[in-house]
C-alpha cells in the first residue's frame, strides 16, 4: 500500500514595511507573539526613518527578526527588499499600523496546500473608533484601474469599463500573501508605484498570467490607519499626487497592452476629472478646509501630468531579477511568547507592558446589547468596566453589542463588534404575534451568535460571557461550541414580579432565563444576595449549579479630581438620589421621608436624578400621573426643595455626585448597586437598604448607613443623622472611597472574573471537552 504524506503547511515570512511609526510597529510585532501558526519569521524593512524605530527593534526584538534598511521612501522598493530577504515559502504582507487576528497565518497557510495557488488574502476592518468600517472583502481590480474593495455578493459587482476578461481578484496591501517563488518569477513589485496601487498591480499582473488567487472570507486584519508621510491628521490631508499619478500610470501600463492605448488614455482622463470633481465636492460640503482643497488640486494637477508622462513614455521599474539573499529562516515565536499580554491595534495609554504575565492571557468575548458611550444602563456600564479591567490585565477582549450595521472598532483596547439584529429579522413573525420583546432579543442573540462563530474562527476565543438579562447568549449556548458564562443581574422574572407585570410574554421570558441558566457552564453572580435570589427564583441547587461570585467594580476617579467633603458645616446641604423613578427603587419611601427631613433641615435640597418609569411599573395606570406630578400634588409644600432632573448623561451625573453632601438610594431590592460605588468613588457617604447588594457594599456605620427596605421613617432618621454632622459625612465618604479602591476597582472586578473563567476553562480542558458537551442535550 502506498502511503501518501499529508501536504505540508508552508513556512511564512511576514514582511512589514515601515517608516516613522515606531509605536504602531511595536504593537504589531507584539501581536505576532500570539499567532497560532508557529512556522513563521518576521522581516521588517525600515525606510528612511526619522524616529528611533531601529533602536526599538534592536532592543526589544533583537535577533528574533530580520531588519533590512531601505534608503528610499518607496513602498514597492521596500516590498522588493523584503522579498529578497525572505526565507519562507510564502511571503505575507501586513501594514505597520495593523494587527492580525490570532489565526491569520493559520488561515492563509491552508490554501497553499494546493500547489496551483499563487496567493491568498483576507478581510480587513478599519477599527479607529471614529472610522470603523469593513475596509476590504473580496476586492477586484481591472486593467483600467477600477477597483472594488468590498464585494459582499457577486451580483453586486459594479459595471466596469474594462471587459470581463480583464477583471481580476486582488488583495489588500495590508492583508496579502503570495508564494515567494511566484513573486520572484515576475520580479516583484513595480517600483514606479511608490505608494498605492502596488497591491492591485500585482493582482492584475498575476491575473494576466492566469495565476490562481484565493480570497478568504476570514483571516481578519484589524487596521488602525495612523498619520504618516502620506496621510496627515485630517482625513482629507492625503497624498493626492501619489493617488492620481499611480492610478493614471496603472491604467496606461495595464490597460495599454490589453484594451488599447487610446481607450486606456481616455479612461485615465475621465478618472482624472472624477478626482477633481470629488475634491471640489468634498470642499463644497465643508469637510475639506480651503487650504487643503487648494493643496489637493495642485497635487492632482501634478499627479495627472506625471502619471500620463510616465505611463506613456517610462518603462516599468521592475527589477531585472530579485536576488534572493541566502539566510536562515528564523522563527519569531519565543518561549515566553504565549504569556505576553494581548496587543490591541490601538494601545491603551499607560498599558504598554512588555513583560510576560504569570499565566497565558485569555481570549474572551463579552455580550452586551448596549455599550458606553451610546448606552449607560447598568449592564452596559458593568460590561464596559469589566472589559477595561480585563484589557488592563493583558487579556484579549471582544464585546458584541448592537448597532446600525456590522462594524468593528477598538476603543481603550477593547474590540467592539456592532451587529444589527434587525438587518436580518429571523423572528419577525413572533413580533407580529405580540411577542415583540422576545423577537427583539432572539434576533439580537442570533446576530451575536454569528459574530461569536467568526471570532472563534479568527481569534480562537475561549469563552463567551453573557448577561442573563435579554438572553443575549441563549443562541450561542444552544450551539454548544464554547463554554458560556452567564452574568446574573436582576432578572426579567424578578423585575416582572416586583412591578406586577405579569403577562404571557414576561412569563415566557422568565422561563427562558431559567433554561438559559441551566445551559451555563458558569454562573457569575455579583453578590451573595444575587446568588441567593437567583437560586430561589429559578430553583437552582446551590450544590450542583456552577455558581461563582465576582463583585462588580468601577474605574476609580483620579485622586486629583476627588474633593472630600468639608469638615465644617455648610449653608446648604444637598441630598442626591440616582435611579429610575419606580417602585423598586424605593422612590415612594423617599417622597415620604423628604418632608420629615426638611422639617429638621429646611436648608437641604434634594436632587432626584433619573427618568420617570411610572408608565412601565404600573404607577401611572394606578394613579393617572407620573412620579414628579404625584410628589408635587401630595407634598406641595416641599416642592421648592426638590429638583427632578429627568435623565442625566454621564458627565452631568459625575457633577451631581461631586456636588452632593449625601447620597441616598432606598431600593426595595438591588442585585448589586453600582450607584453606591459611584458615590463612594467621589468620597460621598451613602444610605441604602438592607436588601440585596447594598448590604455587602456598604459597611453600616463606617461607609454609610443601612435601613430596612420600605421604612420611610427609618430612612428619614438616617438622613437626618448624617445631615447633622459634617465630620461624620466626611469620614464616611473617605472610608467609602478607600473601600472602593481596595475591593471594588475595575481591576479587582476583572481579577475576580478572571479567576472564575480560568477555573471554568481548566475544568473544561481537564475533561477533554467543553462542559457544554456533558449537559442535558437540548435536541
Amino acid at each position, binding site marked *: 500500500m502506498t502511503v501518501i504524506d499529508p501536504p505540508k503547511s508552508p513556512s511564512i515570512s511576514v514582511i512589514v514595511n515601515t517608516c516613522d511609526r515606531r509605536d504602531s510597529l511595536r504593537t504589531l510585532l507584539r501581536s505576532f507573539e500570539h499567532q497560532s501558526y508557529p512556522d513563521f519569521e518576521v522581516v521588517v524593512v525600515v525606510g528612511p526613518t526619522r524616529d528611533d524605530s531601529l533602536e526599538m527593534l534592536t532592543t526589544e526584538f533583537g535577533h528574533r527578526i530580520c531588519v533590512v534598511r531601505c534608503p528610499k521612501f518607496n513602498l514597492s522598493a521596500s516590498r522588493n527588499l523584503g522579498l529578497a530577504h525572505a526565507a519562507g515559502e510564502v511571503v505575507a504582507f501586513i501594514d505597520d499600523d495593523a494587527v492580525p487576528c490570532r489565526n491569520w497565518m493559520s488561515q492563509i497557510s491552508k490554501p497553499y496546500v494546493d500547489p496551483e495557488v499563487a496567493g491568498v488574502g483576507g478581510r480587513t476592518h478599519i477599527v479607529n473608533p471614529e472610522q470603523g468600517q469593513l475596509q476590504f472583502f473580496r476586492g477586484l481590480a481591472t486593467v483600467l484601474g477600477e477597483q472594488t474593495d468590498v464585494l459582499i455578493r*457577486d*451580483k453586486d459587482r459594479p459595471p466596469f469599463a474594462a*471587459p*470581463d*476578461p480583464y*477583471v481580476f481578484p486582488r488583495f489588500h496591501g495590508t492583508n496579502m500573501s503570495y508564494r515567494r517563488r511566484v513573486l520572484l518569477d515576475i520580479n516583484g513589485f513595480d517600483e514606479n508605484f511608490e505608494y498605492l496601487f502596488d497591491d492591485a498591480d500585482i493582482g492584475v499582473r498575476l491575473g494576466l498570467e*492566469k495565476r490562481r488567487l484565493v480570497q478568504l472570507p476570514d483571516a481578519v486584519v484589524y487596521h488602525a490607519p495612523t498619520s504618516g508621510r502620506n496621510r496627515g491628521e485630517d482625513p482629507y490631508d492625503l497624498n493626492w499626487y501619489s493617488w492620481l499619478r499611480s492610478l493614471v500610470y496603472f491604467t496606461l501600463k495595464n490597460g495599454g497592452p490589453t484594451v488599447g492605448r487610446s481607450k486606456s488614455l481616455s479612461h485615465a482622463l475621465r478618472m482624472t476629472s472624477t478626482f477633481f470633481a470629488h475634491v471640489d465636492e468634498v470642499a463644497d460640503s465643508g469637510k475639506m478646509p480651503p487650504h487643503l482643497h487648494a493643496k489637493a488640486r495642485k497635487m492632482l494637477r501634478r499627479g495627472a501630468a506625471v502619471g500620463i508622462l510616465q505611463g506613456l513614455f517610462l518603462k516599468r521599474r521592475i527589477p531585472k531579477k530579485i536576488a534572493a539573499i541566502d539566510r536562515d529562516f528564523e522563527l519569531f515565536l519565543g518561549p515566553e511568547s504565549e504569556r505576553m499580554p494581548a496587543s490591541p491595534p490601538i494601545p491603551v495609554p499607560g498599558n504598554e507592558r512588555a513583560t510576560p504575565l504569570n499565566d497565558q492571557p485569555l481570549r474572551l468575548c463579552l455580550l452586551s446589547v448596549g455599550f458606553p458611550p451610546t448606552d449607560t444602563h447598568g449592564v452596559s456600564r458593568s460590561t464596559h468596566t469589566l472589559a477595561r479591567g480585563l484589557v488592563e490585565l493583558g487579556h484579549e477582549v471582544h464585546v458584541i453589542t448592537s448597532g446600525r450595521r456590522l462594524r468593528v472598532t477598538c476603543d481603550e483596547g477593547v474590540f467592539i463588534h456592532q451587529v444589527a439584529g434587525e438587518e436580518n429579522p*429571523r*423572528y419577525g*413573525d*413572533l413580533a*407580529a*404575534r*405580540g*411577542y415583540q420583546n*422576545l423577537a427583539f432579543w*432572539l434576533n439580537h442573540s*442570533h446576530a451575536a*451568535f*454569528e459574530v461569536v462563530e467568526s471570532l472563534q474562527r479568527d481569534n480562537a476565543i475561549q469563552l463567551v460571557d453573557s448577561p442573563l438579562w435579554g438572553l443575549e447568549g*441563549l*443562541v450561542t449556548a*444552544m*450551539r454548544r461550541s464554547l463554554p458560556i458564562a452567564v452574568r446574573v443581574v436582576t432578572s426579567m422574572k424578578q423585575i416582572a414580579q416586583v412591578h406586577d407585570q405579569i*403577562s*404571557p*410574554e414576561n412569563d*415566557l421570558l422568565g*422561563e*427562558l432565563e431559567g*433554561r438559559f441558566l441551566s445551559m451555563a457552564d458558569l454562573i457569575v453572580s455579583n453578590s451573595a444576595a444575587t446568588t441567593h435570589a437567583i437560586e430561589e427564583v429559578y430553583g437552582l441547587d446551590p450544590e450542583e449549579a456552577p455558581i461563582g461570585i465576582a463583585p462588580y467594580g468601577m474605574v476609580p476617579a483620579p485622586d486629583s479630581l476627588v474633593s472630600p467633603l468639608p469638615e465644617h458645616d455648610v449653608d446648604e446641604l444637598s441630598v442626591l438620589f440616582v435611579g429610575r423613578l419606580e417602585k423598586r427603587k424605593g422612590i415612594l419611601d423617599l417622597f415620604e421621608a423628604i418632608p420629615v427631613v426638611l422639617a429638621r433641615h429646611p436648608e437641604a435640597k434634594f436632587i432626584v436624578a433619573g427618568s420617570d418609569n411610572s408608565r412601565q411599573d404600573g404607577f401611572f395606570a394606578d394613579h393617572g400621573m407620573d412620579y414628579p406630578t404625584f410628589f408635587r400634588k401630595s407634598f406641595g409644600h416641599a416642592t421648592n426643595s426638590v429638583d427632578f432632573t429627568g435623565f442625566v448623561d454621564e458627565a452631568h451625573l459625575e457633577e451631581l455626585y461631586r456636588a452632593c453632601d449625601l447620597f441616598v438610594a432606598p431600593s426595595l431590592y438591588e442585585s448589586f448597586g453600582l450607584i453606591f460605588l459611584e458615590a463612594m468613588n467621589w468620597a460621598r457617604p451613602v444610605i441604602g437598604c438592607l436588601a440585596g447588594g447594598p448590604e455587602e457594599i456598604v459597611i453600616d456605620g463606617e461607609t454609610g448607613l443601612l435601613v430596612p427596605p420600605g421604612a420611610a421613617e427609618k430612612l428619614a432618621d438616617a438622613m437626618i443623622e448624617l445631615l447633622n454632622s459634617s465630620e461624620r459625612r466626611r469620614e464616611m465618604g473617605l472610608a467609602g472611597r478607600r473601600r472602593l479602591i481596595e475591593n471594588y476597582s475595575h481591576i479587582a472586578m476583572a481579577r475576580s472574573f478572571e479567576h472564575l473563567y480560568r477555573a471554568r476553562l481548566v475544568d473544561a480542558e481537564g475533561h477533554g471537552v467543553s462542559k457544554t458537551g456533558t449537559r442535558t442535550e*437540548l*435536541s
Partner: protein
Amino acid sequence: MRHSHGDPLTVPKVLSRIRTELEITVNEASPIERRLAQIRSMQREFREQPVGGRFLAVKRLVYWFTASAFDRQAKVVEALLDLIEELAEENRRLALQFARAAGDDGVRDEEEGRPE
C-alpha cells in the same frame, strides 16, 4: 399585552424555533449557492479564454467573426444565473417559512417527549 394569533408560545416551541434558525445559519452556504459561484467562475474563464488547444489561430479567427453572438449569449447566461440565484433565495425563504410554521405547530415537547 394581547397575543391574538395562534396558540401561546411555550419554552419548548421557542427552543425548537431557535434550533431551526441555527440549522439554517450553520448551513448558510447552500449547495446551490456554491454551484452558482462555480458556474459564474466557469463563465468568467470562458470569457477570458474562449478558445484553446490546437489550431488556435484559426479558432481565434472564427471566434473573432462570431464574438458579438457570444457576447449576447454571455448576457443571456448572466441573466439566467441572476434569475436562478433569486429563485434559490426565494426557495430558501419559503423553506424558512415552512420550517418556522412547523416549529410552531409540529414541535415535539421536549420535556414531555411527545408531540404537542
